[in-house]
C-alpha cells in the first residue's frame, strides 16, 4: 500500500499513469463515497469526482504537505459537489433543456427515502460535509477539520449543531 508521506509530489514529477495510480487512484473511491453522500446521485457523484481528480492532478505539485493529500483531495471533491449543485440548479432554470436531454436530478428522485437522508438534505453544505466526513467516512475530527479548512473546535461545534438539526431529540454525547 502506498504511504503518502513517501510519495514524490514535487512539480517536477513525471505525469504518468503510474503516478496517478500511486497517488490519486486510491482516493477516487473515498471521493466517490463522499460525493454520493453529498449529492445522493451516483452519476453526478462520478462527474464530481472526475472533475475533482482533474483539478487535483493539475495542482498536485503545489501541495506542500504530503500527509494532507487525502484531506486536500476530499476538500476538492466537496467543492465540486457544491459547484455541481449550483450548476444543476442554474442549468435547469436558465436553459430549459428538453426533457430527454436535461440533467435529471437524481437527488430529487432518490432522496425520497428515509427520514435521515431527508434530514441530511436539509442541512447546509458545510454542515452536511462534516456529518458525512465524520460519520460516513469515519474520519477523525482533526482530519475533518483539515478537509473543511477550520479549527477542530469549530468543526466539533458544527457537528453538534448539525446533529441537533437532524435529530433534535438525540443525546449528542452518545451520537458523537
Amino acid at each position: 500500500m502506498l504511504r503518502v508521506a513517501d510519495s514524490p509530489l514535487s512539480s517536477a514529477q513525471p505525469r504518468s499513469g503510474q503516478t496517478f495510480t500511486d497517488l490519486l487512484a486510491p482516493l477516487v473511491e473515498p471521493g466517490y463515497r463522499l460525493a454520493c453522500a453529498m449529492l445522493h446521485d451516483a452519476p453526478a457523484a462520478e462527474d464530481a469526482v472526475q472533475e475533482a481528480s482533474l483539478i487535483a492532478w493539475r495542482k498536485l505539485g503545489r501541495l506542500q504537505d504530503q500527509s494532507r493529500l487525502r484531506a486536500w483531495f476530499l476538500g476538492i471533491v466537496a467543492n465540486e459537489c457544491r459547484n455541481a449543485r449550483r450548476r444543476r440548479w442554474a442549468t435547469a432554470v436558465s436553459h430549459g433543456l428538453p426533457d430527454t436531454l436535461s440533467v435529471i436530478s437524481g437527488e430529487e428522485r432518490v432522496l425520497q427515502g428515509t427520514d435521515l437522508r431527508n434530514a441530511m438534505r436539509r442541512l447546509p453544505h458545510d454542515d452536511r460535509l462534516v456529518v458525512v466526513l465524520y460519520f460516513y467516512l469515519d474520519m477523525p475530527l482533526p482530519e475533518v477539520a483539515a478537509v473543511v479548512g477550520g479549527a477542530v473546535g469549530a468543526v466539533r461545534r458544527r457537528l453538534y449543531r448539525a446533529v441537533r438539526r437532524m435529530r433534535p431529540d438525540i443525546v449528542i454525547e452518545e451520537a458523537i
Partner: protein
Amino acid sequence: MSLRAEIHDAIDEVTPPAPMLASRVGAYVLAEDRVVRRPRLGTWMRPLRGMAGVLAAALVVVLLAGLVLGGRLWRDWNSTVTRPMPINHTQLKALEARPLNLPLIDAGAACPAGPILESPSGSELGPLAYGDGVGPVYAQGTGPRYATGWGTYILTAYVVRPTFTGLILIRARDLQTNQVVVFAHNPLNKNYYGAIPNGDMAGTDFVLEHKVPKYTELALQTENMYRDLAGLWPVAVPLQGFSKGSSGCIGFQVDGTGFTEHFVVSY
C-alpha cells in the same frame, strides 16, 4: 442502532458500487491534462514584469501588422490550428462516401437503444465498464454536460479495440428529428490526440467559456490517440452536441477499414 450506523445504511442505499471508476477517471484525467502550462517566472525575472506590458503591446502591434499584410499566410495558419493533425484524406473520402444507413423512427416511438457491451470485470472494454456499440469502437456518453443557447454538449469517451488501427469516421443523427449531431474539441484540452472533428462546419458555439467550432463528423486516428492506463486501448474524449428540440434518440454510424458499425443511444 447508533447514528453512525444509521448514516452508513442511509447513504449506502444511494451509493452503488463503481469498481471501474478509478480506471475511468484515470483515463479521463490523463487525456485531459494536456494543456500547455505557462512556466512560472523565476525570481530573477520578476523585475522584468514591469516591462512585460510594454513588450506585450508591441508584440500585439507586430502581430496585427503581420495579419493585415499576410492574409494568405494567416488563412493557412488558421487552418493548421483548426486541424493540426495530418489526416489521410483519400482514406477519409472513401469512408465519407459510404452511405449513411440510419433509420428514421416516428416521433414518440420507443428509442431502439443498443447494443451495449457490459464489462463488469473491465477486461473486455479496457477503461470502460460498459460501452455503446458492437466494436471495434465503443462510446460512453456519461461525461459532464454543458448547456448553451444552441443545445447541449456531452463529453463523450470513445475507445477503440487495440486490435484495430487506422482511420475511423463517426457520424450521428437524431433518429426522430433527423437533426445532425455535431462534434467539437473539448476546449480545455488544447491537444487533439487523434480525435478530429471533421466534415462540414456547423457554426460555432461557446462552451466552457471558449468559442468552439462544430463539425458534422468525427474522425479518429488510432495511431495518435491517447492510450488508457494499461497503455493498450486508444481513448478520446471529444464533445458531442445536440441542438434544442432533439429527441435524445441518437443513431451512430461508425466506419473504418473493413467494418461499419451501428448503435443507438438514448440520452
